[in-house]
């Protein structure tokens, strides 16, 4: 059992190193592109045209129109093409964010004022973004862009509801706590003595 555990641990370690090396190798290509262009800007560029196109890709109107007006096979091909476009758009956004973080890391590695806690926060923010966009990628790949947009809409609404419930719970709990503090004799005694 112990041996299996240790061997599994070693395998996991090797796997992590391989993934990191692979990521680094992939990243080098885009890093080289940045170096060539001498473009060292820290920024995520919002492309208005791409945003307009993506809104169209995720809109069900076109798909509904094609589904009602054309054959099933044509609608299927149309849906596949839209999926490819959506995946390409998402890959582009993910790539930009990866580039942003890569430039950040390259910049702060020589900065002696680096705060590890801030770096961890940023790393988890990036990880969360990658996870979320990775999940969206899977949903788009399996169900298509229209369905993915619905899932996103639903999850955002669900998150909003959860936040509302949490806020209500906090607002109910706060006066009770305030009441306890107010009626605590030790507290009132302490106030008198001071």
């Amino acid at each position, binding site marked *: 059992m*112990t*041996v299996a555990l*240790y*061997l599994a641990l*070693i395998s996991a*370690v090797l796997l*992590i*190193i391989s993934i*990191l*090396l692979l990521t680094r190798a992939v990243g080098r290509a885009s*890093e080289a592109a940045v*170096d060539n262009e001498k473009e*060292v800007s*820290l*920024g*995520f560029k*919002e492309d208005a045209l*791409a*945003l307009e196109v*993506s*809104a*169209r890709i*995720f809109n069900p*109107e076109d798909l509904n129109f094609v589904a009602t007006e054309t054959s099933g096979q044509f609608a299927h091909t149309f849906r596949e093409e839209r999926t490819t476009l959506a995946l390409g*758009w*998402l890959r582009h*956004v993910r790539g*930009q*964010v990866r580039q*942003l*973080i*890569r430039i*950040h*890391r*390259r*910049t*702060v*590695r*020589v*900065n*002696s*004022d*680096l*705060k*590890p806690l*801030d*770096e961890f926060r*940023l790393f988890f*923010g*990036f990880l969360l*973004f990658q996870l*979320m*966009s990775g999940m*969206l990628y899977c949903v788009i790949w399996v169900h298509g*862009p229209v369905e*993915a*947009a619905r899932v*996103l*809409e639903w999850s*955002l609404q669900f998150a909003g509801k959860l936040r509302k419930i949490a806020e209500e719970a906090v607002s109910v709990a706060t006066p009770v706590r305030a009441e306890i503090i107010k009626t605590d004799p030790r507290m009132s005694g302490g106030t008198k003595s001071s």
Partner: protein
Amino acid sequence: MVSSVLWVIGLALESTLLVRSVVGNFLKHYTLFYLYLLSVLLRSASLLAVYHWWPNFYLSVYWYSQFLNVLLGCALVWEVYKIALSRYPGAARMARNVLPFLFIFAITRVFVKAWNSPNWIPGRTALETERDLRIVQGVLLLSLVVLFLYYAIPLGRNLKGIVGGYSLFVLTSIVHLTLRDYLGDNFQHLWQYIQPFSYVSVLLVWCVTLWSYAPNPKPETEPQLQEDYQSLVRATRRHLNSARAYLHRGMRP
């Protein structure tokens, strides 16, 4: 016979590495690494003598000198950190914050385990302790490698060789010691061949990578990028948030 041949080959390779560092005048750049190598060389030579003339003391001498080597191995990891991150104060600061935490966490576990062991004697329990100490080294090395990859720290051929070779050595040691602990004396026969063979492989890696001096490349970061850290973090966070918002906007028809 085979294990003795491997033993002698190991001694020859270690001597070659030391001679090359003196001839090439780069011993001063990796002092702790060569100190470690010298201690391994002296240990191997003295163990050979003890094995032939005082076989009764062999076991004790083997395990106690092994712990000295493990400690020197930790010093080697520290040297790798010092050299690789000397030009990267930001990454070095991150390492200074993370590595001691991991080291204390791992070493405490080892000491607690040894403390709780009712009869700690060189032999079976020493083997377990060595494995635990090797795991501590492994954790430290792995953390350093992850840090190098995360911050894209370029390493020179020498340092790559030291890190790669020593990682290989630590990894094979953990596997050997675990299997020997689990399979007992049945594995001992096989171990006599596997351990020197893997060590000779490590020495070959070092011979190739440390044949001549190859310093670490200088940082590629442009001087104008040395901005205020807080404003850099704020900017990155802002851009990350805008990317998230952009993604939401793009997917909401």
